[in-house]
């Protein structure tokens, strides 16, 4: 019986959401209780369910809509602990909003997946999904079956993807051809708080990626780029360090602040007598034995320092701590040391300096040491704010971006922006095809779909047109956020595109006098754009396919 109970309980934990037709009575007037606690569940069905779901999705899309584009606005978000985030990044906004509604959560996940996969375009994808759903609502009202709407969307999406591939340009990408990458990074950063130092930030991002890129495999391991935030200073002080920056200091204040041509011992063992893992106790029953033990302990310390010294190391990086005695000994022996360095950083240091991580002192040898040009402890600002900078490493495979800025919020936002830019640069290395931004790609796709839609003989035709209309939401939002008249800007760009058959015409958000995005240098990666279209379509499809929502009703 206990077993059954516990089983019932676990099942209930998995899915207590269920509701039922209010209460069913049989012919004899007795109510059925079919589903557990059915009176406490709510259930929405049919057209009402679609409408409720679509409205929820639209509400989410509306929230982020204003942060789209170069003139998009930021949001301020305060979490329950009172911590404040200021951001323009769609994924971050949605993540911090802590939405309750299940359908809205799908959109949050949508922007997150765009973030995971591409890194940028997180706002655009949500706006597009919201717009698709609004269009779908109109079709549902006209009595078109939701599945047909989805199928039409799917068809249209494929047309759009084909069109994008057709209008995409291939740019040259390589460590000597950075211009295209910088332009792309600038487009990504354009809408962010860092836009004042656009060029500088873009270069930092591209340099960082180029330093660690694997050109043969066309891949970039992003974890080799370390971001270090330091509030204070100006944003333009943000710099790329060819090497590693760790937020630590030398263990003894009197140790030299700079070590040139450092030979680094990278240790994962603490500077203290080794401890067996097995439970142990030492029984001391005489004074001699006690003395012997004290002596032995002291010997451990001096042996360790000697072992390190003997290998020729001039710097010790240690994963663990060491007590004052060891610290003093190291200082006395002219061995600068850094303690409590995290595992990930240890690894990066090992990779960059070409050293090996050594688990105990007896295994130290000269060939396991890493080398670096300089290791420096630098102080920033007026506070006692120090960092260890390791430069001149033989392997330039690990770099650090030090992000500076006026306050913590700005620095955090700048880091997010840089992360986006780095991701986009990586995407460009993977696939060097670009499309042009400013809504031009969406307009081109929309025109292509409209053309194709007329060839479709079934109801899907309407859904395809609706998809084309939904794509227009992006340039419209761009224009609106830039203070332009949305409809006239869109109409202008659209008519010029079809008249001049130039797919690079978009909305001139930055008022540069030309609507040609190729001239403006607004680059977006093709992969990112396709991904946006596909993800938005798929999530719209998922939401449209739900005709029944069963959930525990609110108690309030």
């Amino acid at each position, binding site marked *: 019986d206990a077993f059954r*109970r516990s089983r*019932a*309980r676990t*099942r209930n*934990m*998995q*899915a*207590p*959401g*269920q509701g*039922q037709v209010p209460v*069913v009575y049989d*012919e*004899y007037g007795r109510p*059925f*209780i*079919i*589903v557990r*606690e059915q009176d406490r569940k709510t259930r929405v069905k049919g057209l009402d369910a679609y409408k409720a779901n679509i409205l929820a999705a639209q509400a989410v899309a509306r929230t982020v809509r204003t942060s789209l584009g170069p003139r998009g606005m930021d949001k301020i978000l305060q979490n329950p602990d009172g911590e404040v985030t200021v951001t323009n990044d769609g994924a971050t906004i949605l993540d911090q909003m802590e939405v309750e509604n*299940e*359908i809205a959560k799908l959109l949050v*996940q949508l922007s997150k*997946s*765009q973030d*995971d996969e591409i890194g940028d375009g997180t706002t655009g994808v949500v706006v597009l999904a919201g717009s698709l759903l609004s269009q779908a609502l109109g079709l549902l009202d006209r009595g078109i*079956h939701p*599945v047909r709407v*989805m199928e039409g969307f*799917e068809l249209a999406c494929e047309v759009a993807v084909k069109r994008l591939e057709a209008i995409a340009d291939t740019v040259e990408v390589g460590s000597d051809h950075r211009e295209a990458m910088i332009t792309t990074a600038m487009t990504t950063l354009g809408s962010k708080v860092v836009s004042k130092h656009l060029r500088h930030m873009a270069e930092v991002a591209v340099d960082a990626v180029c330093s660690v890129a694997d050109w043969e495999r066309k891949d970039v*391991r992003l974890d080799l780029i370390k971001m270090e935030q330091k509030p204070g200073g100006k944003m333009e002080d943000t710099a790329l360090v060819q090497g590693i920056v760790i937020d630590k200091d030398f263990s003894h204040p009197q140790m030299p602040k700079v070590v040139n041509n450092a030979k680094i011992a990278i240790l994962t063992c603490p500077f203290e*007598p080794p*401890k*067996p*893992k*097995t*439970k*142990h106790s*030492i029984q001391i029953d005489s004074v001699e034995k006690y003395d*012997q033990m004290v002596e*032995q302990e002291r010997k451990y310390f001096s042996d360790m320092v000697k072992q390190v010294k003997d290998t020729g190391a001039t710097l010790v990086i240690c994963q663990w701590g060491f007590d004052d005695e060891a610290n003093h000994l190291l200082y006395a022996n002219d061995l600068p040391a850094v303690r409590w360095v995290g*595992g*990930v950083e240890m*690894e990066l240091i*090992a990779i960059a300096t070409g050293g*090996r*991580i*050594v*688990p*105990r002192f007896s295994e130290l040898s000269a060939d396991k040491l890493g080398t670096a040009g300089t290791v420096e402890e630098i102080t920033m600002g007026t506070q006692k704010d120090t960092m260890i900078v390791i430069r001149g490493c033989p392997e330039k495979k690990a770099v650090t971006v030090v992000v500076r800025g006026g306050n913590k919020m700005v620095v955090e936002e700048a880091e997010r922006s840089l992360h986006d830019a780095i991701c986009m640069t990586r995407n460009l290395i993977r696939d060097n095809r670009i499309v042009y931004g400013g809504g031009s790609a969406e307009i081109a796709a929309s025109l292509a779909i409209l053309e194709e839609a007329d060839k479709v003989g079934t109801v899907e035709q309407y859904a395809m047109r609706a998809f084309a209309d939904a794509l227009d939401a992006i340039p419209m939002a761009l224009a609106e956020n830039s203070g332009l008249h949305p409809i006239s800007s869109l109409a202008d760009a659209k008519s010029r595109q079809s008249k001049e058959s130039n797919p690079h015409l978009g909305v001139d958000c930055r008022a540069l006098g030309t609507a040609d995005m190729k001239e403006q240098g607004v680059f977006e990666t093709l992969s990112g754009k396709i*991904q946006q279209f*596909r*993800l938005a379509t*798929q999530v719209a499809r*998922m939401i449209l*396919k739900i*005709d*029944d*929502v*069963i*959930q525990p009703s609110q108690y309030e």
Partner: protein
Amino acid sequence: MSNLVQPSIILLKEGTDDSQGIPQLLSNISACIAVVDCVKSTLGPRGMDKLIQGDRDITISNDGATIMALLDIVHPAAKTLVDIAKSQDSEVGDGTTSVVVLTGAFLNAAKPFIEDGVHPQIVRKFFRQALDMSIQFIESYAITYGATGDDKRTVLEKLAGTAMNSKLISAYKAFFAPMVVDAVMCLDEHLPIEMIGIKEVKGGAVQDSLLVKGVAFEKTFSYAGFEQQPKKIMNPKIVLLNMELELKSEKENAEVRISDPAEYQKIVDAEWSIIYDKLDKIVKSGATVVLSRLAIGDLATQYFADRDVFCAGRVPEEDLVRMAKACGGQVQTTVNDLHDEHLGTCGVLEEKQIGGKRFNVFTECPKSKTATIVLRGGAEQFIAESHRSLHDAIMIVRRAMKHDTIVPGGGAIEMALSKHLREHARTIRGKGQLIINEYAKALEVIPRTITENAGLDPTDVLNKLRQKHHAGEKYTGVDVNAGGVCNAYEALVWEPALIRTNALKAATEAAAVVLSVDETIRHPKSERDPEPSNPYPQRARPGGRR
């Protein structure tokens, strides 16, 4: 039961509900039908999904078995439906909604007879008879591949495509169907389903999903030093372990007592030598890849890194088992006596970035009897539903590999059966005629529901279907695209015959079970809220069971 001898005899505990007789039977039928109505709208290519919210997670699904399980049904008779959906799922893998809908229809057909006083046993008897006839008919009706002239692969792809028709991923069935068939083709003759791993990686479009002919698993938690290991190894020698490679105390509860401080170092050294001894043996065996189900500590990670050996600890057990099958190695629990024959190998080991995650991919395995599908998608629920759909498709393909008969879907088989049974019914004398006739009519529920869900007029379509079938076009089914009828066989809507026979069997059995129950005794406890926070305290009080 006890209405003559009044309150003095209490046979059952207070609060026990014991309803009985024909009213109870009818009540059970109604309850089942109410449940069927819940899942009905998911049937067919235009079927919709359900969103079911739990305490923390939400599930969006089209899969009958999944929905039934999540509905958490407590009505004792209606629970039968959950069980048959489950059994269809484990037996065939697809057609779980069909089986529930069919049961509902059979019960509905039986209801008027029961109301009119026909004994339930008679209804059951003829239902069974009808079932036997149906199964015989399907055998003659089904088409074996040989007859189609198509090569097996195309048929399998079609079958997989039909299984995916009603699912979220139906638009990508052209993409997934070959993938599913490839995956199943990778397996050995027993087609063990657990040898197809499905990994979910959030992010990316569905089209970015990929099939790895071999084993792939996500990078496990790694310690410092891992990045210094090689990330691409050609023809690696793989050792699979089920042991920890960490510096640790060998016995949990052992304690060492030392009286001589000079001995201290020896203990430390002894522990180190134990682990180094293990590591040394592994490296000496010639292994270049070490996988363990248990942790591989930082010390071992660095040791391997120094010797250009790749390692991964805490590999999920199922992956390790699949690894063993694919590379031909055996999972070892000790490193003593490690020889070449215990080591596995494969063509290439490579660490690949898939979306935001890193995967260890082992391909070109010599004994590759396993495959991995990496699913991508925009939202967790999306991938979860794709996973379920692919699972169904895989099950179908597996079944089809073994049983080479297919039937056209889209309600065609049900219509043909219905016609056959009706014709037969006319030759029977007595009640059987009526009952079998109703059974035949109940079968039409499948095409009717498909049509309804597609937003078409069921009466209209059904009449056309009946007419076509009467004219001898026995493959005619519902055409949801054009809104009429079409030859389902030519439209390539194919299903393994097994789905249908099993669904019919299960549904008839379930209906028979419900029909044979005439009394329900429900213990008062079974309806109580298991959660402590009960908003109905008066109901929760009796019998402090905690």
